[in-house]
């Protein structure tokens, strides 16, 4: 199975799995393990399938690494090399730590999408159970068609996936732990690092500037946690702090935000007051000493904390909505760079009007003036999905036509004269009567309707599922035509075998069951019979 072109990133020897010694390989897209002395892998997982890795605590005798898959299964590797077990494990862990997130996102997105589709559509879910769980076709084949279809028909749905925001407390999650000897340890995960980068673009820029040319990653983060930037309440002392620039940049950003002002005039405290008292008038309450010189150290550190919280919250909020807002931001940028307040003046009123209207609205005092609507309540969603049958040109009979024809028949009946010399023979007549009485050949149509009542609903349901599943398989099959590539040819053959397998595993047992239970109601199995016919057609087609 191991293809030659695969790049091997790490090889760790003396790794035990299920009490068997072997070698662990970390490759570009998967992790694999082969027992010693054999050149094939007994364990192989794509990174995309791995949900997470777990490691045994440091103090434990066994040095282990566990991989948990999305399916819930897990595989445990035991690093058995006595001298370097811990080091080996660390190496593998580090590498996995870097690799997993890359694949994770893709896998997650797909998985989520699939999950969502299955949850939303019970028919599809049933189909999935019938075909995939019973292993008629593989999951990939099943989805290959579906996801593509979704992508093509409704790209907006797919793209509009909601961005996951950033937790407001991500910095709080980095709990420093004392490591026992006068040091502190911070645990950083990939998520936290991403949060930091997304919230503080300035830090990201610093990171890309300095790592790895000037600093190692570890050093970078060490400095980050030591910096005045992280502990905003500390007064800045070190000048060589690479983050002091970030702080300045933030300050600038904050200031520009403040200068830009707010869009909603109702929260603009600056223009709230209509006529401020001139300087010198009014009862001066304890004058806020805004100048920094007057502040004590404690006060200015308090002030820094407050500023930091405001800034942090604003940044977290902005990080969550950054993507969507870019065009709008640019628009506002251009209007504000004009330097002339004229423009903003012209733009402002609509926002203001809307906000004012909102503010004076009393919705409960008003009669609802929009027409009362009835909520759409679908009992049978599939009927809704199929939609109305297209209107065909049909011969409709008008009421006049009907009256005419009734009159005509009445007239005919009135003038009816039996021709007794040319009647049918008695035997023919009695057989006709037999045929027309209940149970007779010609009354079968009536009996057929009764099947609905005769067959229990679960059988009907099963039949329906089989029908849908068969339809799905056939859809796959027919989608291969015209067979003009080797791939399609292969697929046709595979689908044929799938169909046959479906017939064997699903249809035939069902048919048997039905025949055993309802001998007389052959008719209900017409569907399955017709399937058999289709299959034979298919076989011929392939040949």
């Amino acid at each position, binding site marked *: 199975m191991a293809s030659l072109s695969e790049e091997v990133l790490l090889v760790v020897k003396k790794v035990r799995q299920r009490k068997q010694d072997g070698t662990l390989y970390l490759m570009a897209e998967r992790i694999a393990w082969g027992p010693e002395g054999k050149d094939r892998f007994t364990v192989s997982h794509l990174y995309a399938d791995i949900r997470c890795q777990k490691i045994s605590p440091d103090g434990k005798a066994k040095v282990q690494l566990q991989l948990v898959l999305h399916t819930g299964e897990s595989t445990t590797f035991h690093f058995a090399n006595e001298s370097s077990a811990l080091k080996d494990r660390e190496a593998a862990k580090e590498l996995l730590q870097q690799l997993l997130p890359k694949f994770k996102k893709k896998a997650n997105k797909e998985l989520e999408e699939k999950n969502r589709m299955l949850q939303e559509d019970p028919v599809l879910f049933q189909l999935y159970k019938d075909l995939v769980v019973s292993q008629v076709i593989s999951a990939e084949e099943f989805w290959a068609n579906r996801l593509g279809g979704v992508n093509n028909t409704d790209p907006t749905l797919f793209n509009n996936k909601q961005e996951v*925001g950033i937790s*407001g*407390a991500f910095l*709080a999650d980095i709990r420093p732990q004392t490591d026992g000897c006068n040091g502190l340890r911070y645990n950083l995960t990939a998520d936290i690092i991403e949060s930091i980068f997304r919230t503080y673009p300035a830090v990201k820029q610093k990171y890309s500037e300095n790592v790895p040319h000037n600093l190692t990653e570890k050093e970078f983060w060490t400095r980050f946690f030591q910096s005045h930037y992280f502990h905003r309440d500390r007064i800045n002392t070190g000048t060589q702090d690479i983050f002091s620039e970030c702080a300045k940049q933030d300050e600038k950003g*904050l200031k520009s*935000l*403040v200068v830009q*002002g*707010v869009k909603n005039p*109702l*929260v603009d*405290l*600056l*223009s*709230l*007051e*209509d*006529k*401020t*008292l*001139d*300087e*010198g*008038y*009014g*009862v*001066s*309450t*304890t*004058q*806020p*000493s*805004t100048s920094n010189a*007057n502040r004590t150290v404690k*006060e200015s*550190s*308090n*002030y820094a*904390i*407050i*500023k930091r*919280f*405001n800034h942090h*919250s*604003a940044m*977290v*909020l902005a990080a969550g*909505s950054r993507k969507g807002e870019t065009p709008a931001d640019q628009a506002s940028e251009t209007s504000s760079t004009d330097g*002339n307040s*004229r423009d903003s003046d012209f733009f402002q009123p609509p926002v*203001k009007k809307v906000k*004012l*209207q909102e*503010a*004076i609205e*009393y919705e*409960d*005092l*008003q*009669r609802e003036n929009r027409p009362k609507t009835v909520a759409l309540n679908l009992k049978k969603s599939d009927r809704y999905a199929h939609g109305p049958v297209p209107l065909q040109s049909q011969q409709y009979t008008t009421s006049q036509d009907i009256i005419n024809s009734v009159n005509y028949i009445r007239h005919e009946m009135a003038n009816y004269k039996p021709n007794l010399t040319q009647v049918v023979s008695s035997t023919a007549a009695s057989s006709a009567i037999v045929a027309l009485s209940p149970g007779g050949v010609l009354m079968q149509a009536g009996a057929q309707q009764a099947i609905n009542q005769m067959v229990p609903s679960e059988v009907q349901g099963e039949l329906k599922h089989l029908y849908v599943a068969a339809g799905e398989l056939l859809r796959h099959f027919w989608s291969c035509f015209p067979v003009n590539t080797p791939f399609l040819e292969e697929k046709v053959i595979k689908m044929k075998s799938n169909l046959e397998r479906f017939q064997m595993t699903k249809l035939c047992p069902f048919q048997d069951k039905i025949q055993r239970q309802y001998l007389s109601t052959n008719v209900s199995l017409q569907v399955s019979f017709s399937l058999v016919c289709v299959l034979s057609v298919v076989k011929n087609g392939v040949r």
Partner: protein
Amino acid sequence: MKLNIEGLLVYFPYDYIYPEQYSYMLELKRTLDAKGHGVLEMPSGTGKTISLLSLIIAYQRAFPLEVTKLIYCSRTVPEIEKVIEELRKLMEFYSKETGESNNFLALALSSRKNLCIHPEVSSLRFGKEVDGKCHSLTASYIRAQRHSNPNLPVCRFYEEFDAVGRQVPLPPGVYNLDDLKDFGRRKGWCPYYLARYSILHANIVVYSYHYLLDPKIADLVSKELAKKSVVVFDEAHNIDNVCIDSMSVNITRRTLDRCQNNVDTLQNTIHKIKETDAAKLREEYRRLVEGLKEANVARETDIYLANPVLPDEILQEAVPGTIRTAEHFVGFLRRFLEYLKSRLRVQHVVQESAPQFLKDIFDKVCIDRKPLRFCAERLQSLLRTLEIADIADFSAVTLISNFATLVSTYSQGFTIIIEPFEDRTPTIANPVLHFSCMDPSIAIKPVFQRFQSVIITSGTLSPLDIYPRILDFRPVTMASFTMTLARTCLCPLIVGRGNDQVALSSKFETREDFAVIRNYGNLLLEMSAIVPDGIVAFFTSYVYMENIVASWYEQGILENIQRNKLIFIETQDAAETSMALEKYQEACENGRGAILLSVARGKVSEGIDFVHHFGRAVIMFGVPYVYTQSRILKARLEYLRDQFQIRENDFLTFDAMRHAAQCVGRAIRGKTDYGLMIFADKRYARADKRGKLPRWIQEHINDGSLNLTVDEAVQLAKHFLRQMAQPFRQEDQLGLSLLTLEQLQSEEMLQKITQIAHQT
């Protein structure tokens, strides 16, 4: 719907009505009938404004000779604009129902900053700059100068308005600030002067308090408004402070330094003019001798220098001889200035009354009372004669002369306090002379005397009887209305203890107590976990909030709160706070949820509403007492005790509770809204505090929610929020807290409605 309020046909622009609105209109009608003043408290969010407007306009239409004008005063610009929008709605309803366009003219008036359309002037950021620039383009003597020198800059909007705008009255309609600007742009007229001119014949004027209460502005803008007007002060719970502020002056050393420069400039200018155009000064002298009132020559554009004292106090005499010539006046100013400087060189706190001050100044520098009284007016005349364009530069000398006029006019109700340093920093010399008004009734008295009906209304005016006392007037109606509710949508809880039974309080002794701070943090943390969307928390003062935030940060409480919601904090910088506010709303809007830490008495607590999800809970940490160590406050308390027999504690509690009620009331803005009101201080449980809350809050505090622990409060809050989250439709309210016309007319309902108004 059309209502019958004791025989008056009132058009009400909604299909339904709240019972309390009907009751409110009844009381209002009775007040207008009696031609007296009224104090009406009505819960926020029950449509107070529209009830007021509907009734008064109906009254105006029915009795056009009795009530000619409605003057509606509100506090902030957005509030002014809201009133106009409601009015527009009402007017549209009128024309729809009656089928004819009525010829009502209603407009908003605001400062130049909000109305100017001159491209250069309006781009200035601060109101003072706009005023100054406008003045430098439109002052009467500047325009006169332009006749000789046409190259001087000109405001074409004002010129156009002056040329044609006055002849053509503003067409009837409802004009908001933006509408005025649009109209001004279309016609090429200055909207500000158009509005100021039009308020004289408008039926409804909406503007801010200052235009009526601050004598410096009122004299210019509102002097000629008709006596038969109805004046409404909305959101009037702070009206006493507005009155006091408009009459008080503070003088620092910096003011005096700038004043010195001003006086020097005046001197130089006088010298220059003397050489070039001595006739001008002689002309001024002649005018002053004859006592010609400035009003004759003053143009509407010559702003700024109105007399700071109330109209009935201004002397109708000629300016005394000692300050008639320009040089003498400048010399006089110098002497006065030197005296003030010497007074600021004190080492200890001095407090004295106005007569004491006058006696001292007479003894020391021989300045008489009479010339002091004319100081403001004399300066006004001088500045105009000298044709000074940049009047904003002379704010310091204007301030000093206003002070001179005020201190020599009023012998009662004012106090002078000279403090050599701030209390917090006794080592830094920073002398300030406070001339502070202690009697709010002085500023508002002319309003009560002049206009036939003055309505004071707000969501929080409890206890009602204190306002007539401190404003010194006799109302004909005083009523407090409750909020009829189909579901109890407000949930006041008094949290008095932490989970560890530590008493929670912001009182001075335990202010620094870590146990209290921790429990406060715990309360906020627990609430952040259960309350959806927005939480607003108010602290008693800015310093207190800073300290608490710092120690929450150290204890890691804020980090834990951040797990639930984002945190935004009010700062002393208004622009920064505006941004934080907007972000806060954004965070509430997108579902993340946020907490706003804010300060009672701050800008946020006074002007910002937290409707619906913007404020699902308000937490009031502590009782927001005013800083009691201030000497100005002490003097005022003393004055209140002596003059109005109001005990110190009563007033302090009243003041604290009105601010607390303001804060918690921010969250409830209507009957479909809901919110928790958490009073986190055990002192709220006491009857003297609780009894001063507005009735509509008080009646929902039951004995079970008086002294809760944090955990108990969380349980109650959870229960409340779960109930409120159920769908609430119009049908649920109908017949109880929302009435159709038929329901309103039923005998039983009318009976009920009479109980809503609580007379005192």
